[in-house]
């Protein structure tokens, strides 16, 4: 589903974020990217939807070579992905409902179909009662769930989450993990960047096909070798 081969990424100024990373994530797997800050977790998650392009090496998603993708084709690649950003990127000038509806508007859904899907997604994350609220009035945990609802509303096959539990206490973090596990159970391929080891242990003990890809200074640590 997702494969990296010998991927290097260096930024202007000579900073090397990734140094020859290779791995394969199969369909329906739940993979945790771990490692200290600056190990390259976020970079990997940015290379998959072509937010960043690799300096060398190949990134293949759904059989498409992302590294060679034309700029005009990138939007269509991203529509198959569900992205959960570290900073959530919620829009505070519109309602909870409209935030979740955005990905559907982008793909050109008719509004009746869209409304059904938006409510289904909000229901999954327990925010159906808040659809008219402004995201600013939601708690930190609720905002994170809103971000998840927006990421799954168009039913992507791949879900990418960057530090989804960063600012949550343990019980909220588990609640969130349960949602990811639900998506995992129905076959969604999930990659989560985190340094929350308790979360990984929780996931490992509650589901199969869970794997960890530990990163260190832009390379995969030995533990990841198959």
């Amino acid at each position: 589903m997702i494969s990296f081969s010998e991927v290097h990424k260096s930024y202007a100024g000579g900073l090397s974020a990734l140094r020859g990373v290779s791995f394969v994530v199969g369909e329906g797997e739940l993979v945790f990217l771990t490692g200290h800050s600056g190990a390259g977790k976020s970079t990997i998650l940015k290379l998959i939807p072509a937010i960043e392009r690799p300096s060398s090496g190949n990134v293949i998603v759904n059989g498409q070579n992302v590294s060679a993708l034309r700029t005009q084709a990138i939007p269509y690649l991203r529509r198959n992905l569900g992205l959960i950003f570290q900073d959530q990127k919620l829009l505070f000038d519109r309602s909870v409902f409209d935030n979740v509806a955005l990905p559907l508007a982008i793909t050109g859904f008719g509004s009746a179909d869209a409304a059904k899907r938006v409510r289904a997604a909000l229901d999954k994350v327990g925010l159906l009662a808040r659809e008219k609220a402004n995201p600013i009035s939601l708690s930190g945990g609720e905002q994170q769930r809103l971000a998840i609802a927006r990421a799954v509303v168009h039913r992507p096959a791949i879900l990418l989450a960057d530090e989804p539990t960063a600012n949550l206490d343990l019980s909220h973090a588990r609640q969130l993990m349960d949602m990811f596990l639900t998506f995992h159970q129905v076959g969604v391929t999930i990659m989560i960047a985190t340094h929350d080891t308790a979360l990984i242990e929780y996931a490992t003990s509650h589901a199969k096909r869970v794997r960890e890809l530990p990163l260190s200074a832009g390379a995969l640590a030995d533990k990841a070798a198959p």
Partner: protein
Amino acid sequence: MKAWLVQHAAALRRALDMLRHAGWSALANVLVTGIALALPLGAYTLLVNLERAAQRLDATPEISVFVTPDAKRAEALALESALKALAGVKAVRFVARETALASLKSAGHLGELAATLGANPLPDAWIVTLNHTSGGLLQQHAASITKMPRVDQVQVDTAWVQRAGAALQLGRYAVLMLAAMLSLALVAVAFNTIRLQVLTQHAEIELSQLLGATDGFIQRPFLYAGAVTGALGGAAALGMVYLALQVLAQPVTDLARSYATEFSLQYLTAADAATAALFAAGLGWLGAFLSLRQQLR
């Protein structure tokens, strides 16, 4: 096709939302656009009316051909075929010297003067009427008629028609230049407005790109916002010109009446008005387009 329509309808809705949110500043933009357009549009309307006025005055280009006084009547009449053979001639009319004197006598105070004359001093004459007012053709014909036998004098009565034509032409150029300059200003206004709008919606644009929005999806609402502002500005300009004409209508009618003619100002035709509004929409669209091209690269 249906998806395409849905997308465009959604973009238009978002553009209208955008304008509604902008509130007073959107209204101010419409007004600026309207005033800038009202100037050339108003000038154009006046020009159209002036042209109408000029056409109502008898502008038929005529050449008066006076035959030498010693020419015999037969010689004078013989000119007819030569005159008719000229290009662009609509009609030729013979004015016998007796007829000319009679009409002179009946013309008020000149009649008394004519009565004091002994012999008829007037020559036979031909009046040549041409089809259209081409200054060059008139002069050319006048020159060749002068060379015909027994022709004494040739007079072209159209100097003022040419002057009026030239003045109107000048007016047309002036309106065109005014329109070009203010169109540029409108594109600049739209450019700047959309630039600010893009800045305020930066977060949404960035997010939409991350969620798989195409450039078209992102740009469409802004293009619509530019076009709608332009079209509303055009409508405002048409309204302003209309009001100005309403104010001027009575004075113009009074003025015409003092010259013993009937003349009333006419508003732009529906086609002209629609063209103006569409043109304004196009300018707004262009400003938005240029702005987006510069910012979203």
